[in-house]
């Protein structure tokens, strides 16, 4: 088997295992990453929401915010894990297509 084939298989396994990155923090009651709090968490942490942060925080409405489908936030870990895997497939699919596109544009032909 070609090594790139093996690496693609490895990636597929990582995608299937990715919900570990969702379940472990939940299990150990770990919160957001440092400096990645939402506005309401910020209110709790420092007692106010910085004005500029409040304005900019909602600047962009991501279609799949935080790797979860909109409205699924309270659906429980198994559905969130499913959404996480789908997010990984979609995100990685687009990333791969863009990189291959850039690579095709830039790379030398032949060997």
């Amino acid at each position, binding site marked *: 088997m070609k*090594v790139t084939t093996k690496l693609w298989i490895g990636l597929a396994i990582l995608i299937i295992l990715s919900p570990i990155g969702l379940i472990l923090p939940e299990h150990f*009651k770990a919160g957001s990453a440092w400096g990645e709090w939402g506005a309401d968490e910020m209110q709790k942490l420092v007692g106010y929401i910085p004005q500029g*942060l409040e304005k900019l925080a909602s600047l962009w409405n991501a279609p799949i*915010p935080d790797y979860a489908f909109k409205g699924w936030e309270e659906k429980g870990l198994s559905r969130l894990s499913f959404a996480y895997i789908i997010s990984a497939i979609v995100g990685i699919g687009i990333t791969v297509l863009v990189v291959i596109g850039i690579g095709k544009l830039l790379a030398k032909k032949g060997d």
Partner: protein
Amino acid sequence: MHIPDGYLGPTTCGFFYVVMAPIWTIASKVVKKTLNARQVPLLAIGAAFSFVIMMFNVPIPGGTTGHAVGGVLVAILLGPWAASIAITVALVVQALLFGDGGITAIGANCFNMAFVLPFTGYYIYRAISYNAPVDSNRRVVAAGIAGYLGINIAAALAGIEFGIQPLLHHTANGQALYCPYGLNVALPAMLGEHMLVFGWVEAVVTALVIKYLQKQAPELIEEGRI
């Protein structure tokens, strides 16, 4: 380490877009000169690997979460300029599609994770593994140290970017406009958690994949690639 929108003021956001513009330009020129068509799938795998490894959030029990970036590994295998492009694509997709990292902070996030991290990691690896045979353990150790230091230097920079915000932007009565934590909090927080936990994840992941490739595809480990 994905700085969201609203944590960095306009000066910092603009500054890092301006800094990244020539880096992206040089990266595409270098890659154009050196990348072979047959290496394109490997570059895509590198970007995909970085993307998925960043989804593996590791908890500090009762505290925060963090993750590896995988960027040092991509830099070791494809060179730092190609890695820079691969990680940039992953970070932009994460920001646009999943709101992971801010739109205004793409410049800063790419500077930390798609420039400083692969470049420092790459040159540390090259220095430690200098003249080592392809199958030597020194390469595995070099990869681990490079992963650990690369992500920690990037995390320290993110801490500094967070930490200078209260100095740059505040209201007349002293309330912060953006990130409210100064250097005395942000830098030790970002650096400390990466030195204690997330840096080790990057180190182990980088070293293990190099060890695996030494057996499976030693041609990928040879020197003087892109």
